[in-house]
């Protein structure tokens, strides 16, 4: 069985568990993003047909909520917390340093597909602010130097 069939089967299972109900759209989009990594146009069309919802409704919901990714993220993901506490403690300076160092803009994925730089509104590590997430690791009380070093490390590992 190919990887695609496998994923489709998992999606089908989720659809079935929710009785193909339109009201479960958010749950299904969450699961679908978990399975596929992001929500492609084809995938959204598929979900729209399975739930018997107009594509406009499904696209509308998927684009309304910032948690859903409609493009493929990079191999490594760096997320800056733009919550109030982190902002007050200077996360913006760190983000600008990352942008300069790695030639990337926030919200973007680098053309080589290695790195995405995102911002999020609060990961809740406010007492440890500023916080930057590199892949799954939260770096609390972050500084430019520490974060850039860590990103270099993960990118270096990816080169093989």
């Amino acid at each position: 069985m190919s990887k695609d069939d496998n994923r489709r089967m998992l999606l089908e299972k989720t659809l079935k568990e929710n009785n193909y109900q339109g009201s479960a759209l958010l749950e299904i989009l969450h699961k679908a993003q978990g399975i596929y990594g992001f929500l492609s146009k084809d995938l959204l069309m598929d979900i729209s047909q399975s739930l018997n919802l107009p594509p406009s409704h499904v696209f509308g919901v998927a684009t309304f909520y910032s948690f859903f990714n409609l493009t493929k993220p990079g191999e490594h993901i760096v997320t800056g917390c733009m919550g109030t506490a982190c902002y007050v403690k200077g996360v913006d300076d760190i983000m600008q340093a990352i942008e300069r160092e790695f030639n990337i803009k926030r919200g973007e994925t680098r053309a080589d597909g290695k790195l995405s730089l995102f911002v999020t509104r609060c990961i809740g590590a406010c007492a440890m602010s500023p916080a930057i997430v590199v892949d799954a690791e939260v770096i609390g009380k972050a500084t430019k130097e520490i974060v850039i070093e860590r990103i270099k490390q993960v990118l270096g590992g990816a080169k093989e």
Partner: protein
Amino acid sequence: MKLADLQTIAEHEVDFQRAYKYRINVCCSSGCVPFGAFKVLEAFQEAVKEFGVERECKVARTGCVGTCSVGPVVVIEPGDYIYQNVTPEKVREIVRDHIVLGLPVKGMLYSNEAFFKKQKRLVLRNAGKIDPYRIQDYIAMGGYSALVKCLATMTPQGVIYEVSSSGLRGRGGAGFPTGQKWSLVARGHGSPKYIVANLDEGDPGVFANRTLAEADPHAILEGMLIAAYAIGAEKGYIYIRAEYPLAIQTLQRAIAQAKSMSLLGSSILETPFKFGVELRLGAGAFVAGEETAILASVEGRRAMPRPRPPYPANSGLWGKPTLIQNVETLANIPQIVLNGGLWFSKIGTPKCTGTKCFSLTGKISNPGLIEVPMGITLREVVFDIGGGVQENGKFKAVLVGGPSGGCLPETLLEQPIDYESLKKVGAIMGSGGIVVLDNHSCMVDTAKFFTEFCVDESCGKCTPCRAGLPRVKGIFDAITQGDGRMEDIATLEKTGVYIRDASLCGLGQTAPNPVITTLRYFKDEYIEHIVKKRCKAGKCFKKEAKP
């Protein structure tokens, strides 16, 4: 399970816990986990075995103690010794000295009595003390006995009466009297009735609800159950941010455990009462915390508010009467039922009873999660509990109520914290965020930051918010890039008031608060930016590469 069985479980559990001389509570909530709390937990489990003290030491994973800035945090009972910045390497020494030799390791202790002295922990009473993954821990602390009391001895009207007389008001921010809300939903026509517990803590910088869910999930469930009994609801949803994986996991587990003990489901505790709870995940939309938007989101639609009336109490989820309540409000309920509304009404101020949880962050010495009685002053919170501004900084302002709250100057620090007093000075209770700013923050830049947040989060439905906020942002861009004009100040003031007065929902109505309050209290900074093109904090007038 029957009513009497609960008592047996509680007694059993208390005996079980008494068998241990020490209890080592390792905080494993979202504040401490990223910094290695699980490894510390493992290290303790191994160390107590290594020293052969596993029979006298119960090592437990618990929720948040509140001192989130010095995590991972470990508390050893008896005596509530708080160890800070614990790493797996330090664990052997702690077990050897504290447990085996009976000598607490002074150098590692968090010694800051002031942080706890003025707090009053009602909602967070179990936080950091019980294992949120074990329902037995909650039952041993008297958990679910309030539900038993309701089912066995009280009528639904009796429960509503107690809640009304407690004076409890909604902790989500608006401060609507809870008892009144319950009687509205109880009288609403239509069935089934629903409950939506609001855990969509979208305010950046606020983590009180998450901490509660991670530390004491059953308090939320018990509050929902009692509310369901009082208003006649059969089904409840907890709407929680997807960004809170640990809280989601904790709640899922709590729901499963409550089900397996027939505390959720049909014929709860062998009575005719039935109630089911499901989680619904948000997906990153600040506006989804608004009560009509949350309904749309639970129904699988875009989280866009709608005009009221009809109010959710009459026409909520799928057109049925629905009670929407913040989880902190719900977590107060069991204690109100157990101790009576009168007891609760004596805490806090006469108009604003009880306590409130706040996340205390920013440029402050002791950031963390606190719970204080209503009516405490901002000065007490910032300087006594929070320990004042971090070294090398000078107090400038305190932001109360999240991105749509107000920035208050030092002269207003004597303001008591309650819904009316905060509103009077232009701030809001919001969901409980207090951020301290020092002289390194620019008030113009801060107001711009919050405006940008609200521009991003505006759902786009009503024009004042959708079109007005970007206009405000445009003016801020001009001022902070050196193109400001004096008449901009009047335009900001006017536009802010328009947006506040004409927007459909709470987001738009409160979005101009930071602008209005910074203009009110820090106008000289605006003028300095416009006339002298100077930013004392050094935040503005940076050359930004235009995209």
